[in-house]
């Protein structure tokens, strides 16, 4: 169970550049839930993800994982519980290292890194098995530099790597935004499959309302630093983007003006 209570994040407080990115957001994510988060630019969805990852310090409020208060834990300590896929494929993998070296690094998330060899034949065998799932032929290219792969391949690998070690929550930060439509579809499907296969708890931030409604078990819409809509179960079942926009207008008493949400 992940629980955010009354999270406030204010950037540059007390200056002319003060920005209140989150204005008191509370969210409970039970185990096994797959939440999709949507919202226009500046709504606070990426900040919310940063708060969960430990990358964005909170101004007030608390973050609990399974009843433990992790609000003050830095990113690398929280990584024991939090797996992550970044928007930028260059951040999610380490370009100059080989595929197998990247996989070995991801595999040790949540474990103490010692002086034993990172690449053993046993591990390579494991890597090959897991890479076959992607159907990209990467299992035969373990020694290749990961930076040589396409953005989509790197993103698929980054996703796979996030499942190498157990986590309490998997964070996906608009992880298909930088990809071409075909590859974005592939990665979205892979996301669904992996989350189902491992029964992961996950939170996916997306710009695509279609993906937000077709993936996962629950959808949260952020607006102006607040949680505006939070739907799941029967209410969410069969909902189309048009229905969602109608819901938004009703809730907000305002028309949704950000075209990107509708078009995506």
């Amino acid at each position, binding site marked *: 169970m992940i629980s955010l209570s009354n999270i406030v994040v204010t950037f540059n407080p007390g200056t002319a550049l003060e920005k209140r990115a989150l204005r008191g957001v509370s969210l409970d994510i039970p185990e096994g839930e797959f939440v999709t988060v949507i919202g226009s630019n500046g709504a606070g969805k990426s900040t919310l993800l940063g708060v969960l990852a430990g990358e964005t310090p909170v101004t007030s409020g608390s973050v609990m994982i399974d009843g433990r208060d992790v609000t003050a834990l830095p990113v690398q300590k929280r990584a024991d519980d939090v797996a992550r896929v970044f928007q930028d494929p260059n951040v999610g993998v380490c370009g100059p290292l080989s595929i197998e070296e990247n996989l070995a690094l991801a595999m040790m998330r949540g474990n103490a890194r010692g*002086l034993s*060899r990172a690449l053993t034949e046993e591990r390579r065998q494991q890597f090959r098995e897991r890479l076959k799932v992607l159907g990209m032929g990467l299992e035969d290219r373990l020694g290749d530099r990961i930076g040589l792969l396409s953005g989509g391949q790197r993103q698929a690998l980054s996703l796979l790597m996030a499942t190498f070690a157990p986590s309490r929550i998997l964070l996906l930060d608009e992880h298909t935004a930088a990809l071409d439509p075909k590859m974005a579809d592939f990665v979205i499907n892979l996301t669904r499959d992996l989350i189902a296969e491992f029964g992961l708890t996950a939170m996916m931030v997306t710009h695509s309302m279609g993906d937000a409604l077709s993936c996962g078990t629950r959808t949260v819409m952020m607006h102006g630093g607040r949680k505006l809509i939070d739907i799941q179960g029967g209410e969410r079942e069969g909902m189309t983007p048009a229905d969602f926009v109608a819901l938004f207008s009703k809730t907000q008493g305002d028309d949704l003006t950000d075209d990107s949400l509708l078009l995506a």
Partner: protein
Amino acid sequence: MTVFAFLGALELGLIYGLVGIAVFLTFRVLDFPDLTVDGSLPLGSAVAATLIVSGGIGAMAPWVGLVAAFLAGACAGLITAFLAIRFNILNLLASILTMIAAYSINIRIMGRPNLPVLGEETIISQTAPAFAAMDVGQDFARVLLVLAVVAVAAWLIIRLLASDFGLAMRATGQNSRFVLANGGSSALCTYVGLAVSNGLVAMAGAIFTQLNGFADVNAGVGTIVVGLAAVILGETLVGSRKIWVLIVACIMGSILYRIAMAFALNTSSLGLQASDLNLVTAVIVALALVAPKMRKSGFKAPRPRLSLQKKVPAK
């Protein structure tokens, strides 16, 4: 060039091969330009020379001197890392501060700026009987001894970088966000990297002192540039990105650099004198940094793993 000059260049090249490996660790692996080495080389010299001359620990002094030098250098590295990480001081500046401070410390250790260790027990005098028994000449024995030490150090570093921790170190210099997101501590990697790097340099200083019979507080000037020359020359020699190849290339680069310098000095027609070495080194390093850029439009050449030039943001 005489055989004597060649062996001398080889010996010096091997000793500075340690510096090459150390600079590879900081510049290439951690992406942390570390000028501390200019202070940790004479620091190692000072520690080893003082231990040997004091006579307090007897026959083991030359070997204890190597270990003590490594530890002293590691401390210098830790101080630089501490300044950079804990207080967020620009890494280059943090290392310069430690380097400057080491100058004073080194004179305190020796009690004066220059300390001869002639006629004392050294790693050379202690291994001489063994080499004599194997019928190896004295000049060769020196080279073999240094080769043995450098080979062990190189193997240990290669092994370190092949470990789980080593992988995190290598990723730290390239993508620290990735390391953190995977639960690695980029700070710890930097601490360990700088400690090992400066430990190696100080050990090079200790070996240099024992082989040449003196420790001098000014011996460290330009260490960083010589180390960088070794790294860059080595990289141009090999096209591989394999870590063990790159580490061996650092040693080869260092040897090549020394042999080239010996040649230049021995060729009277060039009219170079010993004090011109710094200028020549600087020019070589500058050219090596510029060369990949100029070659880009021409034939295909392997790009260095990590450029020391200003990064141009990708569009």
